């Protein structure tokens, strides 16, 4: 199946970054783990993204005015829910009803942000306008 230019670029970029990571791993004995793992994660993400987009969309437009509108609305609502969550957590913590660490709060915020974004996107995509 014909591949779009964008997906080809993603695959090439991902492969190149992975190769750089492998070369660094071989030739740089004391390479910091964070650089190697960062490069590998980036390379894998780009490659998987390219393959997934190709399988899912083929040569169709990945996004258009409708999906961009839906994404913008979903992001707005998600941000509002996340801020509400942060506010509620702060008040609960202030009144001693919730004892938690900064690490837990941050990970919960990320979960709420991503979870609500996915839910709102699905809702608006089915709704129409």
């Amino acid at each position: 199946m014909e591949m779009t230019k964008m997906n080809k670029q993603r695959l090439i970029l991902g492969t190149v970054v992975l190769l750089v990571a492998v070369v660094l791993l071989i030739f740089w004995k004391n390479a910091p783990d964070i650089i190697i793992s960062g490069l590998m994660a980036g390379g894998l993400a780009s490659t998987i993204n390219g393959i997934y987009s190709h399988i899912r969309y083929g040569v169709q437009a990945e996004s258009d005015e409708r999906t961009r509108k839906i994404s913008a609305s979903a992001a707005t609502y998600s941000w509002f829910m996340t801020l509400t969550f942060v506010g509620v957590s702060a008040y609960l913590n202030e009144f001693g009803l919730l004892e938690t660490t900064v690490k837990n709060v941050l990970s919960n915020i990320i979960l709420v942000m991503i979870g609500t974004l996915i839910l709102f996107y699905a809702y608006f995509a089915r709704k129409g306008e």
Partner: protein
Amino acid sequence: MLTLQEKVSELKTRIKELRARYDLTQEELAKKVGVRRETIVFLEKGKYNPSLKLAYDVARVLKSKIEDVFIFDDR
């Protein structure tokens, strides 16, 4: 006291009919105007209000005027 009578208009489209006339699938039409097939589906169902540009592009591909493709029905 003045009351305003709200006119609610409903969008109807003749996209499906015109597509059949020119033997275009939803996917082919979507590709020609640069949108996803799902967007054409929602347009045909009248569930999505296109931008002026999109409406113009769809009408142009279907060799029709915008007002012949997209009809606002005043209720």
